[in-house]
């Protein structure tokens, strides 16, 4: 492949337009631009929240005012003007939905265009979808079946009303208000999100799935998710995202908290495909997310699997605090960046309990002029006797104008711990492409094949249905990235 060919390839790589860029016309109620105590009172009032939650928000706001935006990540972007953001947008409240027929057809159409089959077929396939559309849940399926088992799966606002004791007990217990700049911001202004509670000994019989979607121009999205798995329970939770095309940068600062009790297991899978901006890097979502799980008791397990293909700037480190003895944390990640995208993502595994185990598998794929960084911390505390970690970070480069970076941090305070780190960087070879071509396989398909092969041991961790979607997404995001 000559240089000019490669240039051509890179040009083509950057010409891939975002396929999900459209805006649906849905009536919204907006908060005033800007962030003051008034804004927070407005949000809390809109949602009919109890006094304690308002106080909790206001405390977060106080903390946030004294904090500074972090700048250690390997990303650069114009700092958002926090006074120029609308902190609350909700589709006009309608009555509760018993079936999909009652849902705004515009919303359903939007999902249809995304290829999200939110219909009876999907329901029959065994997926309960809690749709979060611009911050407020508009449809929930399968609720009854789940409630028979005592499983709670609802919007965060609903949970605040229906299960205040649970929320009060667990909100901020894993990600405190003051944890970081963005978690503090989220704590102050979070609009809605999902709550999931699996009672003792219950194995959730289906994948719980939430689709997020940013829809209102200039609206910050501040979702909050809380998952609590009681002793001996199991749940697999799916979160998938896409956003319509917009010129203004949109800020997204979500918080996800997971609590896993004795012998429980939580599997959290994400496919993230927000608008990455155009090929010059204009527009696109800023995705500054705090996700953390607490293995609170022994033999608990939390597993994060993520496929990240979207957003202009991503700042995201799903982490596990392994407090219970013999608890297990896992992080499987595929991060694809193309054009001008920047991703700084990874995980933190904090080993506190004895014989705790963690596994990190990170696959970064960079194309165009994008920058893709893995940043991970493995920390073994003094008391974490026999702790074990295995990390594997692989980077794949497409073209020669992108960057891949690995920043592994290891802090080990216990001599009996075993921490392993492996890293590789490779380039999609013209030899591989030619080999595929010679067997009749077109270049786009060959890239898809090679990239999916590269990500295989992460993709294998996704639930079946999700894996198919994720595979498609990988192919779409790298479409035309070579010849």
């Amino acid at each position: 492949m000559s240089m000019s060919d490669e240039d051509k390839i890179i040009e083509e790589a950057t010409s891939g337009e975002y396929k999900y860029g459209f805006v649906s016309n849905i009536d919204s109620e907006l908060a005033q631009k800007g962030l003051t105590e008034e804004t927070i009172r407005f949000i809390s009032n809109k949602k009919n929240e109890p006094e304690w939650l308002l106080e909790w928000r206001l405390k977060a706001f106080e903390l946030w005012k004294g904090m500074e935006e972090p700048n250690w990540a390997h990303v650069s972007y114009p700092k958002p003007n926090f006074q120029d953001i609308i902190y609350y947008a909700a589709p006009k409240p309608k009555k509760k939905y018993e079936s999909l027929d009652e849902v705004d057809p515009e919303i359903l159409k939007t999902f249809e265009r995304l290829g999200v089959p939110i219909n009876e077929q999907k329901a029959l396939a065994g997926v309960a979808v809690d749709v979060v559309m611009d911050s407020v849940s508009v449809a929930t399926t399968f609720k009854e079946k789940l409630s028979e088992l005592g499983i709670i799966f609802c919007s965060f606002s609903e949970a605040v009303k229906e299960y205040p004791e649970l929320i009060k007990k667990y909100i901020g217990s894993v990600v405190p208000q003051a944890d970081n700049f963005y978690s503090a911001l989220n704590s102050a202004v979070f609009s809605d999100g999902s709550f999931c509670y699996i009672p003792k000994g219950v194995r959730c019989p289906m994948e719980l799935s939430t689709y997020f979607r940013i829809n209102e121009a200039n609206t910050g999205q501040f979702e909050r998710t809380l998952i609590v798995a009681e002793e001996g329970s199991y749940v697999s939770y799916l979160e998938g995202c896409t956003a319509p095309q917009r010129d203004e940068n949109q800020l997204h600062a979500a918080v996800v908290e997971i609590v896993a009790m004795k012998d429980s297991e939580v599997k959290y899978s994400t496919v993230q495909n927000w608008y990455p901006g155009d090929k010059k890097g204009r527009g696109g979502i800023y995705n500054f997310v705090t996700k953390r799980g607490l293995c609170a008791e022994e033999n608990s397990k939390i597993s994060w699997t993520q496929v990240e293909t979207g957003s202009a700037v991503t700042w995201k480190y799903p982490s596990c605090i392994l407090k219970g003895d013999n608890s297990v944390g896992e992080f499987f990640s595929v991060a694809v960046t193309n054009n001008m995208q920047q991703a700084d993502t990874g995980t933190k595994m904090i080993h506190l309990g004895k014989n705790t185990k963690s596994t990190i598998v990170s696959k970064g794929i960079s194309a165009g002029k994008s920058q893709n960084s893995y940043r991970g911390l493995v920390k073994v505390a003094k008391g974490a006797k026999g702790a074990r970690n295995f990390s594997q970070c692989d980077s794949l480069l497409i073209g020669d104008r992108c960057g891949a970076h690995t920043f592994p941090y290891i802090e080990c305070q216990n001599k009996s711990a075993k921490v392993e780190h492996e890293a590789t960087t490779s380039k999609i070879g013209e030899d591989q492409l030619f080999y595929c071509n010679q067997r009749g396989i077109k270049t786009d398909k060959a890239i898809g094949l090679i990239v999916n092969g590269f990500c295989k041991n992460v993709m294998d961790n996704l639930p079946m249905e999700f894996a198919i979607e994720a595979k498609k997404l990988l192919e779409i995001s790298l479409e035309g990235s070579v010849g």
Partner: protein
Amino acid sequence: MLKIEGLEAEIEGKQILRGLNLEVKPGEIHAIMGPNGSGKSTLASVLAGREDYEVTAGSVDFLGKDLLDLAPEERAGEGVFLAFQYPVEIPGVSNINFIKTAVNEVREYRGLPAMETKEFMSHLKEKQKLVKLSGKLANRSVNEGFSGGEKKRNEIFQMAMLEPKLGVLDETDSGLDIDALRIVANGVNELKSNDNAFVVVTHYQRLLDYIVPDFVHVLYDGKIVKTGSKELALELEDKGYDWIIEEFEKKS
């Protein structure tokens, strides 16, 4: 089937092929021999369409089509197969997924529907037997961790799956022990029919004990300088290339 006329090709500005002529008819096996650097592998690569090589003159007609005008995957679709001298590893992609994708891409090119899984599996089993490729290799990543012999057998297996009209074998015998060589050769002989043809690039006469060629060509300095029957290969084994080179240089 294949008609090469006056073919000239270069890589990074260095001319390798200097006016090569070759005609291959259905049902024939042609062996291409010659000293190192004579252009044997270049010929194979140019036929398959490797981009590093630039064709500066000449023509290649394949079943009435201008082969040089086609992209590598289109050539594969038309029925050209290259067994690589150094088969490429593709981590994480199972051999079976790879060949299934290839088979269906080629079928799509030919306007055929994708092969049913059941049909594909029976096809696969039959062809695996042909080259004694163990079922385990089908589930391993393409060529990853394969021994030299396994890689070459995998090439022949893929060729058997794709059933090309023209099979080009680029030094498939290099690095093979005698048993593997027999298996590979046997695979080619089983595939051979009146409708297809093979161009076998080799260094040694040894392979030609098992794949019996109709013609043996000696490539030197980017041209075919001598053509003979299979006896020529034996003569080369015995006497080396020098006498041909001398003969050729005297002429020119």
